[in-house]
């Protein structure tokens, strides 16, 4: 199977601190990989490097055969990588519908002049986008809330909206940053179903950062474990569960959601 994402020797240094050091792993197309590790292990930093928010100081990140390390975030998204954020970052002045709309800007074929002249081409495109956004919102049970302010949604709904927004960019790779944070067990089960659904319906590869072991062990095909910025283990859930290195890394550090 061809690998969609490949990290080779990736590292980043902030001043004297090596937040991530010599990280290697690959993801096959259509796979679901979990990135876990104690707090501060560098997981979100890895996400930020893949999505271009940070530039790695060493190593290379390859997506779909092309190097993306060092490219800006908006270009990387247009190449097919989308993400959600650990602390939800919705556009708070916009409605639920508009939040999804913004993610579809990259698919626009017409720009300013059409927005100003508002001819048939403009109308057709706006209709296409409206239909697409409403369809996505419908699939995720957010269609009724479409005209409400994004900030007025419940926490669980806001997390879902963030995922919908990321999906609206039409990605091949979806990065989810602690999607289960703050959820109760019922919501977590629904989340796991949601992720499985996204994979199958949209044929998307998913990379997950998560603290909740139930979620990780439940859906990931492969797991990479980080500690202090380094990979300490890689394998299937079964292998990771019994790995002494991993147990040691977590020893004394109780996951709050376990």
């Amino acid at each position, binding site marked *: 199977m061809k690998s969609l994402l490949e990290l080779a020797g990736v590292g980043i240094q902030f001043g004297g601190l090596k937040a991530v050091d010599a990280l290697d792993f690959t993801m096959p197309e259509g796979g679901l990989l979990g990135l876990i590790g104690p707090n501060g292990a560098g997981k979100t930093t890895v996400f930020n490097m893949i*999505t271009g928010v940070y530039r790695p100081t060493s190593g290379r990140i390859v997506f779909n055969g092309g190097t993306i390390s060092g490219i800006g*975030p908006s270009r990387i998204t247009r190449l097919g990588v989308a993400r959600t954020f650990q*602390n939800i*970052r919705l*556009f708070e002045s916009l409605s639920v519908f508009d939040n999804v709309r913004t993610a579809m*800007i990259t698919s626009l074929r*017409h720009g300013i002049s059409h*927005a*100003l002249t508002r001819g048939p081409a403009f109308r057709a495109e*706006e209709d296409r986008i409206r239909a697409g956004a409403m369809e996505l919102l419908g699939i995720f049970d957010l269609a009724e809330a479409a005209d409400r302010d994004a900030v007025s949604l419940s926490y669980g709904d806001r997390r879902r909206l963030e995922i919908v927004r990321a999906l609206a960019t039409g990605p091949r790779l979806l990065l989810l940053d602690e999607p289960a944070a703050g959820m109760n067990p019922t919501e977590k089960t629904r989340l796991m179903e949601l992720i499985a659904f996204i994979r199958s319906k949209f044929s998307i590869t998913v990379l997950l950062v998560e603290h909740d072991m139930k979620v990780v062990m439940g859906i990931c095909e492969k797991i990479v474990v980080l500690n202090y910025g380094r990979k300490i283990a890689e394998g299937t859930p079964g292998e990771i569960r019994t790995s002494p290195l991993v147990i040691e890394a977590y020893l004394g550090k109780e996951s709050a959601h376990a």
Partner: protein
Amino acid sequence: MKRYLPHTLLAAGLAGAAILHFVSPQLDDYAVNILVLAGINVILAASLNLVNGHTGQFSLGHAGFMAAGAYASSIATLALAPLVAQAGQPAQHALFLAALLFGGLFASLCGLLVGIPSLRLRGDYLAIVTLGFGEIIRVVIQNTNALGGARGLEGIPAWTNLFWTWGTAVVCIYTIACLVNSTYGRGFIAVRDDEIAAESMGINTTKYKVIAFVIGAFFAGMAGGLYAHLITFIAPEGFNFLKSVDVVVMVILGGMGSTPGVVAAAILLTLLNELLRDFEQYRMIVFALLLILLMILRPQGLLGNFHKRPKAKP
């Protein structure tokens, strides 16, 4: 019929401006003057609102673009007016329109030059840099004898009237409203609300900021041209930092990001200016207190909808 609503409104607005102009001889000069000033302020406020309000880029140099447009259009009319004097009214109108557009384009070029280096700066730094650019433009004009230097430029033909002013205002509002209320235009607000999230959605935030800046500068330039051909005499001192602050107050009072709000605020403040004309000493003190109280008590102004992501706690 909804599909043609924007176009209908535009046509109606332009017609309204024309009617206003034809009715104007019935009104006294003083009232007409205030209405024209109000129109110019509406253009300034709406254009700055695109930059400051919708896109969240705090620019303190708007007066610089106004100056660029004022001087560019005035140079054009001063040079070419004698040539069309014989050709009659239609030629004069054409020249005026061309001069105004020239002023706007020149100002937008300045906007491009200012925007590209500045727009990667953080909010408060951007404010100071735009202030700096505004001052640089002013100092350049002041030291250029061909533009009249500190003495200013006089004898500009008095061609501004209610139609030109409110017609431009209508076009400005139409442009900005159409732009912002499209899918493309939602990008401006996304850039304002959360730049990192916007980039992550594939939005090229720098491009959006520059575009907002350039369009804002264009209309500021047109407002400058209209202003120059109203008062027929312009000097660099009239386009200083305080002028930029005047426009900022309108945008803040109206509510950053609300076009109707800033239009209302622009008209209101024009009237307030007139009322306080005899109390010039107190005018700026009133404005300053207004700013401070607004920020403390009602930062969203009259109609604003400002949900910028607060600075993350460490």
